[in-house]
């Protein structure tokens, strides 16, 4: 077999102008064969016997790449290509297979997603069967974003999130002196403002019951509240776990290991079904609040482990130096240890937040309708049956954009803080 291929001789730099055009020709032949086959159903190699038909693109491509495999050809592009995807026959076959699979699958996917999709219209009849029906998403978009929140009050949700984003962005640009006050404001005062805005009932705002909150805004509300609340609890747990007092240490260990060992679904069931039995007769706590408390405690355990990692990484000398200055336990930790430890674990905290955002869809099993729950509700509406795929693809893309950017950001933070030390 090798002898036949080597009829023309081994590919080498001397016969550059002989091998390269032949290689490119054969390789393109393989590509064109696959393209024509999958996109246009045209088979240019039909004169070959049946079994061989499937493999002709592979053979052409393989031969083409073999001829292109000239070591040290002197052509920068060819060399780069050869090192990366053509270094030996195994690699070239893998490359070919990947390219063929992409050619066969990406055009139909794009077709369904964009080209044949329906963007304009208002009812189910405007949707053709061949493409995605994005009209479904367009019509339901306000509900998917805001849940069953009354349309007239949507400005309240928008205002609170705009405030949150501006405050967080401002955190990066204001001078250090004011940063401390801004952080205290963000952690202690802002939750009340946000809660009152969205919940209503005071200050002349219409009361909106928590069962009406939903959609993507509910995802963010829960994530923000859980993050702000789980942080101090996690800090106390981490410190408690490292303390020398046996009661505190074992209580912290027990708490942390308990919440880390159970799945989030059982925690949510506990909050929605079991917890009300522990409240006195007649006292009723809203389901959303119980769920937020449950998620907070759950994430606090993970946060505690992350912070504990940071505390362990600090050299012992810091403790000794601070103690030699006469600082008590709390001053030592608040002024010396925690600022350094937290800076070390900022990527870990960002990861925990990311995990929190990815865990929020679970609340639909207890009846709170965030984005995925809203899509479930939309797809079973009698007027809009059968659009499950569009709904889940849309939610997937949305979540992916959010989570991908957050993970990229946390990777950048990791780079930045790694060089600091």
């Amino acid at each position, binding site marked *: 077999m090798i002898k036949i291929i080597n009829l023309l001789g081994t590919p080498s730099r001397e016969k550059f102008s002989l091998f390269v055009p032949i290689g490119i020709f054969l390789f393109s032949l393989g590509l064109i064969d696959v393209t024509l086959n999958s996109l246009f159903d045209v088979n240019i190699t039909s004169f070959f016997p049946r079994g061989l038909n499937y493999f002709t693109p592979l053979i052409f491509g393989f031969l083409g790449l073999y001829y292109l495999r000239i070591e040290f050809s002197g052509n920068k592009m060819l060399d780069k290509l050869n090192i990366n995807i053509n270094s030996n026959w195994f690699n070239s076959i893998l490359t070919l297979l990947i390219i063929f699979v992409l050619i066969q699958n990406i055009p139909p996917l794009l077709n369904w997603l964009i080209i044949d999709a329906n963007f304009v219209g208002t009812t189910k009849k405007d949707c053709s069967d061949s493409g995605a029906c994005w009209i479904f998403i367009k019509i339901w978009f306000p509900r998917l974003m805001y849940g069953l929140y009354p349309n007239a009050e949507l400005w309240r949700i928008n205002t609170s999130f705009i405030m949150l984003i501006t405050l967080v962005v401002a955190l990066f640009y204001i001078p250090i002196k004011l940063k401390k006050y801004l952080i205290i404001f963000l952690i202690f005062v802002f939750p009340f403002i946000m809660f009152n805005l969205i919940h209503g009932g005071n200050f002349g705002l219409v009361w909106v019951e928590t069962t009406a909150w939903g959609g993507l805004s509910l995802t963010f509300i829960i994530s923000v509240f859980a993050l702000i609340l789980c942080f101090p609890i996690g800090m106390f747990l981490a410190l408690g776990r490292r303390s020398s007092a046996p009661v505190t240490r074992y209580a912290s260990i027990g708490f942390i290991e308990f919440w880390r060992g159970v799945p989030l679904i059982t925690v949510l069931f506990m909050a*929605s079904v079991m917890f009300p039995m522990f409240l006195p007769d007649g006292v009723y706590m809203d389901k959303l609040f119980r769920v937020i408390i449950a998620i907070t405690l759950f994430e606090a355990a993970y946060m505690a482990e992350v912070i504990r990692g940071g505390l362990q990484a600090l050299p012992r000398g810091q403790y000794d130096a601070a103690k030699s200055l006469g600082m008590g336990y709390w001053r030592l930790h608040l002024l010396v240890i925690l600022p350094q430890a937290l800076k070390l674990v900022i990527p870990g905290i960002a990861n925990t937040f990311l995990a929190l955002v990815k865990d929020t869809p679970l609340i639909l099993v*207890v009846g709170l309708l965030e984005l995925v729950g809203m899509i479930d509700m939309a797809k079973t509406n009698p007027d809009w049956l059968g659009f499950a795929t569009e709904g889940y693809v849309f939610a997937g893309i949305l979540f992916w954009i959010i989570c991908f950017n957050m993970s990229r950001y946390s990777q950048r933070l990791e780079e930045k803080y790694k060089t600091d030390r």
Partner: protein
Amino acid sequence: MLKYIKQLTSLVAVIAVLFAFTTESMAAKKSKTLKNTIKKGFVRCGVSQGLPGFSNADASGNWTGVDVDVCRAVAAAVLGDASKVKFTPLSAKERFTALIAGEIDILSRNTTWTLSRDADIGLTFVGVNFYDGQGFMVRKSSGITSTSDFKSGLSACVNIGTTTELNMRDFFTANGITYEPVVFEKADEVVAAYDSGRCDTYTTDKSGLAAQRTKLSNPDDHIVLPETISKEPLGPVVRQGDAVWEDIVRWSLNIMIEAEEYGINSSNADAMKTSENPQIKRLVGAEGELGAALGLDNDWSLRIIKQVGNYGESYKRNISDTGILPDRGPNELWTKGGILYVPPAR
């Protein structure tokens, strides 16, 4: 002199306190739920997540249905206005725990009255507002026309945690058929699974089958098999331990049924105040002190009939006229061949 004034003041104080206690107990006896409802200003009602005819919300968020009407009757009786109700949609999983926890005060969600539910989990059933039975739905194209056509190997979709799940097992075991149960939490998921072909048959209460059929992609492709395999008396539920609230809900429902028995409806209720029949006059509050026994004023029954209507009007409005179940079946008055027979309100 001062001593007498002091004594008189304390006496007046004691009498005032006693009076306050008695008026309070007259207004709310020992019912925490009634007190809280009056304080909040609305009745908290647990309903389904969307069952046409029983409890269903339209696009603007208005709830209608026979279960909804039970809560509205209670609101009319207690708060004077049938619209003062907050509806909480609940799945089959959380319906009982929501009631036990105190998230809602009435569960009006086409719930079957069984012994274990009544005695074992801290709830009380206060009546039946719909007598039903369990049935099966199949596609017309399958050629099955009766449950005797069922063969082993069938897959059946059902809702989790319902009497339907248990009854289905009893039925198939009794007939020696091996089957595959596919259980989902949300009724909508059950319907979607049946529609897609994942299951060969869908089983729930026959009224539910008729209502959910409207949510299928081609409602006319499906039929409900004629056999009824169980008794499903559906009715409202309240928490155990609050006797006054139980009575209020029970008798609000009974008033609706008895009003139809005596021919009182929402349009002629006022006119009926001058009727010759003393029972009719009692039902509209023109005679007797029925309200006081429940801790309500005497117009409570009149408000129910005027604002919500009698049982027949509610049924017609929600179930017959919408085409779900055109005729009333067992849910007709006992005087007309059905089995609705309620204790007299006197």
